[in-house]
């Protein structure tokens, strides 16, 4: 009798426990679970996927695949996911859906339309070649140009959309697997990727037809449409992607695509609709770039620069193409203008055009149907639409912290930005921020409850300050089928006087490595990868990492954000694995090993009006300066002031001082001989000189968009400058950064164009001693 009683006790306990912590369909978990899902995948129904050779599989097959069933790769072989997903939304392009299919169907009315002729496949040519030809045509003419009305048959679009919804409805199993109704808005003016994926909360409220880039290629019009849908009770959100290949247009700070100024209304509209950004996918990472984060030694992760469709003669623009810079500009705008258009959460996804997605280095089967279907094609670097397939990556995923695996619960998780991005493996990461967490919190089994009760999770805003500095609780667990964890970092961004800064803190790491005494940087974990065999072992790294961390340099008067980044130990990149299979050397265009990673959504701190008043005034706005009689210098005055001069500057925000040398600018009044300094530079065009910054060190607090002047200072690397329309212009990888100099009394103050109306730099007398020793205060200096 005792045993059955005991068993029923266990059953009761089981139900209770599941209720509290359950990962299954047994009920909602108030502590929330991590659900991994796909927000970006194309099937044969997408025009470009069909062209590339994905002809067989549709949305229903995608859901089958994500649930764990094998499906056919477009090239005919079976593919199966390593770890099934918890949720997904198929996002076929909403533009010209089904058009190629019907253009090649001689019985369809569409196939007779002149505009459809270039879409027809020539049976006498290899299919893959024809695919690329039409792909490029589509990218350039259809997605890039004005809408081709004759190809927009609402009958076709409507039918395909209805079938897409039906597939999501059929695949949706609340508690077990969630399928969203979703699509991609594919705006690509002049090959600049402005794409957004649109997710609907409920499928029974979706509109008759999606709002496509044919309706408008301006994001502002998409947001207006979304606002109207929301008013009708149809809740929806947008996830932008591939900022990295937007040619700098994804995160503008001055004007939108129509040339209208970015203002508070624009910011609100964007944030009401675009809750998340995809920061990693098959076509590269959009978190940050080594040139924008020169002090972040892990910034160079899967950087992929090109423009879709490979337009000739175009160079990429990095400024405006990366999420971390947008977050920094966002807090700078909050502080200087009172609004923040870039308060977004993070996700990652695939953008596979194969219906199926690999996700893992060990099973990468390409993403563009027949154009990268075999190891031989992939590794031969056969360029397709401007892409070297060796640069592609097996795709990321979005994790959502939600009470249960249902459309409503997951959608709400995305709305409140309680999401994180992973580069492929199912790494789980939690981040809480607040003022009352104690270092003991993690010893308590119910720490997650305390996390929610005493602060905010990722995606949230810190409540009003209750302590001198905010404290963050961060926790991560590895994917049981992948590499161990190396470390967790907190990436902090903040702004002062329109300048923005970033710092990456190592907060917890595997093993007994000692952080550098002065910089706090933790040395690399080591590397178990055998490149020749393409293997690694989990003999280094940790299963779980957790920490309670308080910002050591918090200033309550400044806007800031914090997000966690989790790194795995080094593992072989797919290119190394497939090079081994083919018996060739790992490609020289990508690194042989990578550190897979996870990124939490940020937590923001916004000072109260009162706290702002406590800011120490050490900068001046341009308008204040003008009130004091400041006058902007014209070209001639600028030339007289700087050209051929060595000048010392102080950044009044940070107090850093350095020398700026503006070299000779173009040809002089007479021809210089080889023994004269201007002999080389006279060959440059008029008004073009070289600038060199000197005497910067690793501890110089670099404001945004200055490149890597510390390295340049040491190595003697110069960059170009021009004087034009009353401005000194410095190109930052092709984007002009303009400096205006004002004379106020006998002082010269300079304003950089990306610092939102502040004149933060001042010409100072030459500095004689760079590092005056103050041995009594050595401790204080060490902190910096």
């Amino acid at each position, binding site marked *: 009798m005792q045993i059955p009683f005991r068993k029923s006790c266990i059953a009761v306990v089981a139900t209770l*426990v599941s209720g509290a912590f359950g*990962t299954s369909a047994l009920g909602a978990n108030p502590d929330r679970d991590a659900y991994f899902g796909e927000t970006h995948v194309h099937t044969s129904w997408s025009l470009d996927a069909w062209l590339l050779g994905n002809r067989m599989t549709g949305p229903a097959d995608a859901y089958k695949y994500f649930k764990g069933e094998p499906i056919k790769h477009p090239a005919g072989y079976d593919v199966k996911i390593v770890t099934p997903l918890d949720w997904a939304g198929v996002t076929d392009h909403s533009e010209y859906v089904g058009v190629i299919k019907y253009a090649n169907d001689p019985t369809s009315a569409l196939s007779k339309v002149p505009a459809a002729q270039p879409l027809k496949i020539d*049976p006498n040519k290899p299919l893959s070649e024809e695919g690329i030809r039409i792909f490029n045509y589509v990218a350039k003419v259809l997605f890039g140009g004005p809408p081709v009305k004759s190809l927009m048959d609402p009958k076709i679009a409507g039918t395909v959309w209805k079938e897409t919804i039906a597939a999501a409805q059929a695949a949706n199993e609340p508690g077990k697997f969630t399928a969203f109704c979703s699509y991609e808005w594919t705006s690509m003016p002049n090959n600049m990727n402005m794409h957004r994926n649109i997710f609907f909360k409920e499928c029974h409220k979706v509109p008759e037809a999606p709002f496509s880039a044919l309706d408008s290629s301006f994001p502002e019009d998409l947001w207006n449409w979304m606002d109207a849908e929301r008013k009708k009770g149809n809740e929806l959100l947008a996830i932008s992607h591939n900022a990295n290949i937007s040619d700098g247009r994804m995160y503008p700070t001055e004007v939108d695509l129509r040339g209208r100024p970015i203002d508070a209304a624009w910011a609100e509209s964007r944030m009401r609709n675009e809750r998340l950004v995809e920061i990693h996918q098959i076509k590269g990472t959009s978190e940050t770039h080594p040139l924008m984060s020169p002090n972040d030694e892990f910034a160079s992760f899967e950087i992929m620069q090109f423009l879709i469709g490979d337009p000739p003669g175009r160079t990429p623009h990095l400024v405006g193409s990366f999420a971390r810079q947008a977050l920094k500009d966002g807090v700078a705008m909050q502080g200087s203008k009172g609004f923040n258009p870039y308060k977004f959460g993070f996700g990652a996804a695939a953008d596979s055009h194969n219906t199926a997605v690999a996700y893992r280095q060990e099973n990468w089967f390409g993403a563009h149907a027949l154009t990268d279907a075999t190891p031989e094609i992939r590794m031969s670097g056969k360029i397709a639409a401007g892409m070297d397939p060796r640069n592609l990556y097996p795709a990321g995923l979005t994790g959502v912290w939600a009470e249960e695996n249902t459309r409503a619960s997951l959608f709400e998780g995305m709305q409140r930005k309680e999401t994180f991005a992973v580069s492929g493996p199912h790494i789980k990461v939690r981040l809480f921020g607040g003022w009352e967490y104690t270092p003991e919190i993690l010893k308590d089994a119910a720490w997650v409850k305390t996390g929610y009760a005493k602060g905010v999770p990722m995606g949230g805003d810190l409540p009003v300050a209750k302590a001198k500095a905010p404290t963050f609780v961060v926790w991560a667990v590895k994917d049981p089928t992948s590499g161990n964890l190396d470390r967790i970092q907190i990436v902090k961004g903040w702004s002062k006087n329109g300048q923005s800064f970033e710092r990456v803190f190592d907060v917890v790491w595997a093993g007994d490595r000692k952080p550098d005494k002065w910089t706090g940087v933790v040395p690399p974990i080591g590397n178990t990868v055998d490149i020749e065999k393409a293997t690694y072992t989990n003999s280094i790294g940790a299963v779980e990492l957790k920490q309670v961390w308080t910002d050591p340099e918090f200033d309550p008067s400044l806007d800031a954000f914090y997000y966690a980044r989790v790194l795995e130990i080094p593992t072989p990149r797919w290119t190394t694995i497939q090079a081994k299979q083919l018996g060739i050397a790992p490609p020289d265009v990508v690194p042989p090993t990578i550190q897979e990673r996870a990124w939490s959504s940020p937590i923001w701190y916004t000072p109260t009006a009162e706290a702002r008043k406590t800011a120490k005034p050490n900068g001046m706005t341009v308008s204040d300066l003008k009130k004091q009689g400041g006058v902007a210098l014209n070209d001639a005055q600028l030339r007289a002031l700087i050209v051929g001069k060595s000048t010392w500057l102080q950044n009044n925000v940070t107090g850093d001082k350095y020398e700026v040398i503006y070299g000779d600018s173009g040809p002089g009044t007479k021809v210089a001989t080889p023994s004269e300094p201007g002999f080389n530079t006279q060959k440059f065009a008029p008004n073009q000189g070289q600038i060199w910054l000197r005497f910067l060190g690793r501890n110089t607090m670099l404001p945004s968009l200055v490149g890597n002047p510390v390295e340049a200072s040491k190595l003697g690397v110069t960059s170009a400058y021009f004087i034009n329309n009353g401005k000194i212009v410095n190109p930052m990888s092709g984007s002009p950064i303009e400096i205006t100099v004002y004379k106020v009394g006998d002082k010269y103050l300079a304003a950089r164009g990306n610092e939102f109306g502040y004149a933060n730099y001042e010409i100072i007398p030459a500095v004689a001693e760079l590092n005056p020793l103050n041995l009594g205060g050595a401790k204080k200096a060490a902190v910096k």
Partner: protein
Amino acid sequence: MRHLIREPLVQFLLVGLVLFGAWQLAKPAHAARDASNRIVITEDDLKQMAVGWAAQGLPPPSPQQMKELIDARVREEVLYREALALGLDKDDAIVRRQLARKMEFVAEDLSKLEEPKPEELRAWYEKSRARFALPPRVTFRHVYFSPDRRGANTRTDAVAALTQLSGKPIDASVGVGDTFMFQSFYGDRSMEVLAKEFGPAFARALVDVAPGAWAGPVESGYGWHLVFIDSMTPQQIPEFDAIEQEVRNAWVEEHREKTRASMYESMRARYEVVLPGS
């Protein structure tokens, strides 16, 4: 001139000229107006055209626009019939592929006409029971040994702890091992769910553990575990009544495949294929 020839419009005109010439030469004998040359537009056709027009979000067609629609339809039909008469459909890869695919759709449509009789469906279920099997489910608790804490000794520590626990009741495990970051008890979980949470090897290994005693150590993606299985529901096949709709769907899918295959087989049987050299 070469530039001109590359112009699509010029190409189109040239091709048109050639076709017109061919048509003049091969003008079909039945060009006279007989019954087979009659193009009939019915009331329903007109309605359909109007609906197609409205579906594009356009205001109702004017009489002139309606006339143009009809002209377009007639034109399409005339050209289509003439093209057929000229045999332009022959050896056109796209036409061939499209027609072949249509045949497959016909097979699918045919298969949809058939519904299994209740007893037929039940018999089919009996025959194919295995495909409806539900994966094993397990209720278990475990003691975790963390490589983060124990490093190279993780497994040996787990083995030592097992000796300590063996023969002891469930609650003897309190205080043994390390804190696990998820749960120490899992109630009635399918192997699929456990494979996701612990890694596939752990889920596979669990199936072979005898219930009712501490056992292991079993390795997961996180380290080593001693496990105590409270109960194991082996792989189960639900009764027909419980999953009738699922069985029906599976039958329909299989039937569709079969119909397609058998239709092809019967058509194929009427052909002899000659390969080079045979």
